[in-house]
């Protein structure tokens, strides 16, 4: 199986400046991250806030520039290609907040038409393609005339998905696509994503902090802490036999609703005090985060 996406040594540094503008160090938002996604599979990046998962997504999408490292799409390096129209045909993104990823002043149809017009589709064919796309995400075609504020959260997210799929990309980056939605709506949207993935042969990069969701959607998972992947492997193996302390801490913290889930969770007494963020570590003059963390009892 060939790899749709390969990421090697991806790093993003943000300079930390003192009051005079003098650089005093770097925040290693993304620290030498490497992973690969097989064609047609789902790769999950799990992490909490500050872990760097969104930064990675934005670098792959071309909304941010890596400080160093390589990104290869279907074997070709994408440096210099991101931000171009051609790239937009191959990689697209579904953003986290459906309320703000759709322009409130444009109708659904107009929002979906943006990529169609941008990629040179003649205006006469738009209506049909929009209707096709709305059907694909199981929304009535009349919705093309509605404004985002007339839609529910789940419906807005479906529109965002339709828009991302408008020019038939091969890789879809999903940045916390359901975290703003109710649990029952979330299930429907995940159903849709799975079905579309199978139908269209899509490869997914799935970013989430929701471990239960990750467990049931991703084939392979990488656990991110402070910009580094601290553990990676097939979803089942990482969840059932976590090696790294941070992974075990994450799993132990998830509120679950059944005895079986409780039984499979690692038992870690909760530490008093919080695990440090990247800025806090910089402040402590510790520099880059230690890869291995031992939990305190």
């Amino acid at each position, binding site marked *: 199986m060939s790899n749709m996406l390969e990421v090697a040594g991806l790093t993003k540094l943000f300079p930390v400046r003192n009051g005079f503008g003098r650089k005093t160090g770097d925040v290693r938002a993304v620290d030498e991250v490497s992973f690969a996604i097989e064609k047609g599979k789902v790769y999950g990046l799990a992490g909490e806030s500050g872990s760097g998962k969104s930064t990675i997504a934005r670098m792959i999408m071309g*909304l941010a520039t890596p400080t160093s490292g390589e990104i290869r799409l279907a074997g070709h390096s994408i440096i210099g290609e991101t931000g171009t129209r051609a790239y937009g045909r191959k990689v697209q993104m579904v953003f986290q907040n459906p309320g*703000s990823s759709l*322009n409130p002043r444009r109708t659904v149809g107009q929002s979906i038409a*943006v990529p169609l017009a941008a*990629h040179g589709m003649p205006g006469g064919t738009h209506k049909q393609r929009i209707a096709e796309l709305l059907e694909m995400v199981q929304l009535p075609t009349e919705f093309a005339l509605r404004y985002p504020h*007339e839609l529910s959260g789940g419906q807005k997210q479906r529109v965002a998905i339709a828009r991302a799929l408008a020019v038939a990309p091969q890789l879809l980056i999903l940045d916390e696509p359901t975290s703003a939605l109710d649990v029952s709506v979330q299930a429907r949207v995940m159903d849709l994503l799975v079905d579309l993935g199978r139908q269209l042969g899509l490869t997914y990069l799935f970013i989430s902090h929701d471990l239960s969701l990750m467990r049931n959607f991703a084939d392979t998972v990488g656990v991110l802490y402070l910009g580094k992947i601290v553990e990676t492997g097939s979803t089942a193996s990482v969840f059932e036999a976590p090696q790294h302390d941070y992974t075990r801490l994450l799993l132990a913290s998830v509120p679950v609703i059944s005895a079986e889930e409780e039984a499979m969770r690692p038992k870690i007494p909760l530490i008093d005090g919080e695990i440090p963020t990247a800025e806090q570590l910089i402040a402590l003059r510790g520099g880059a985060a230690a890869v291995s963390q031992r939990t305190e009892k």
Partner: protein
Amino acid sequence: MSSETLPNAPPRRLSNAYQNWYRFSRNPTAVIGAAIVILAILAALLAPWITPYPEHVGAVVNFRARHLPPSAEYWFGTDNVGRDIFTRVIFGLRISLLLALVVLGIAIPVGTTLGLLAGYFGGWVEIVIMRLTDIALAIPPLVMALAVAAVLSPDLINSMLAIAALWWTWHTRLIYSITRQLRTQEFVEAAETLGASKFHILFREILPNCVSALAVKTSLDAGFVILVGASLSFLGLGIQPPTPDLGTMVASGSAFLPDYWWESVLPGFAILIVALGFNLLGDGLRDLFDVQEVR
């Protein structure tokens, strides 16, 4: 399955326009403001047909009817050469509104475009545009108009141009700050990733979101432009007689205070009411849109 409507979100099928109308109509001062503005515009448009003495706009004198107080025959009284003040006020209103139209018609496109460019592109573009704006903002409009009048002739066109040449700066600043905020919104990023052209992003994604702020500012500005225009003509820089102009009427009528007060006070009153109308309208629009921002 579950209802996804929040208790205080509008029911699904109510359009934006209906909601706006509903809320606007519940605000008494806003409705008054809107009524004044609409009346003023209608009066100005229909001036030749609704005024009792349209010929008094020209070089007409009627010395037997000089300085007459307000009456059934001359609603606002007559001036020092016997012309009906009411008619002249309505025609003067035309000039004022025309002034507002021209000035804002230049200032809005220029200011908005510059603001969009500066806010979205940043870097050199931003620096150049914003510093230019700062320079222009430092010049007081009235002084500028005086300077222009000194160099060219004191004339309405020149005054309008002088004001327009400085008025765009406020629009630039406003649109700049809104664009900067919106630039990081996800729908703008989405447009970028979807391959939209910069023109599209600026004018089809960002600009529509500036419309509410623009509407508020434009209505408030219209009142101010009218005031500035009247001040200029009060100083003698505006339209030359015999064409009626509100500021000029206030000026020339002031020589006859307090005996023939109506010649100065009533045109002044007209300026007040119209400017007030625009202000109330602008405030009402702002209240309307403010609530919407806090979703």
